[in-house]
């Protein structure tokens, strides 16, 4: 019994040690938590995502799933549709699983941008 538990323990510990992370997250979870705790911190989340993504792109590393889109949504909420579309496009191109959703979001934004410019003219 002791041997079994020792083995189980070893497997657990080594199993843990042998799982290096696949992505760099740039503090995404902590920044998101902070922005939920205090909505003003969404500015810090935006800045953090911007600098992390820039760093990843510069060193030609894959940006973790969802990060482009999360930044895009902050841009959208701030009213910057052009930047939002740019980020949703990057998410779509990096992650094929996101294609359906990203295409839908981009289409919706383009539609509302189109109707706005119609009102202007």
């Amino acid at each position, binding site marked *: 019994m002791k041997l079994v538990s020792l083995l189980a323990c070893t497997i657990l510990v080594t199993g843990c040690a042998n799982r290096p992370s696949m992505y760099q997250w740039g503090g995404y979870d902590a920044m*998101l*938590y902070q922005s939920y705790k205090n909505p003003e911190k969404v500015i810090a989340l935006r800045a953090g995502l911007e600098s992390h993504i820039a760093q990843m792109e510069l060193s030609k590393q894959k940006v973790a*799933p969802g*990060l482009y889109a999360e930044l895009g949504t902050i841009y959208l*909420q701030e009213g910057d549709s052009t930047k939002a579309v740019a980020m949703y496009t990057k998410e779509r191109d990096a992650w094929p*699983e996101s294609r359906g959703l990203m295409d839908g979001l981009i289409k919706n934004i383009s539609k509302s941008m189109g109707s706005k410019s119609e009102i202007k003219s």
Partner: protein
Amino acid sequence: MKFAKLLLCLVAVVLTGCASAPAKKDLSAFTAAAPRSILVVPAVNKSLDVDAPNYLLSTLTIPLAEKGFYVFPVNTAKFILEQEGFYEGEQIHKQPPEVLAKLFDADTVLYVTINRWDAQYAFIAATVTVEFDYRMVSRDGVEIWKATQKMQYSPQNNNSGSPLAMLITAAINAAVTRAAPNYLPLTQQANQMVFVLGPNAVPDGPYRILAK
């Protein structure tokens, strides 16, 4: 960071007690569905802390993405659901999973219910408890995985005298203070247990398999 991860692992090992190895649950439904992507929707909250669902949401992406799945951006998903008029977890969990999966073009939907998220105070120490029900449903509406996990921390239970236990106690103690209990370390451990370490852990997703 590495040290923190190691600690988390050790804590998980201590919490599982190392001894029991319960029978593995049947994961054939999960394997058959072979999902590539997971939509995490806001949780149903049965605790009294109104902030719990948002805080929990911020902890779910990383363990599942590191497990090898595409995880839909949780804050973007929350925003889209709000645009559709869905603000509360209760309301969202009542929608047919097929409809949610189709809206996002997701392979599976992860539903979490917060059963416990509280701190009970005695003299100088607090016992902090989190407990979650996790459930994954495929895009055809079939339940493919479920788990329940409770994590509890109370400082007085951890005075075993062993150097390892004391180290862990010190690390967690720093996070749990009487004034503002921090539920995040316990929540992260609960997620780690159900998704990665536990007997019912989620099988590896396509990106983890690819990385091997």
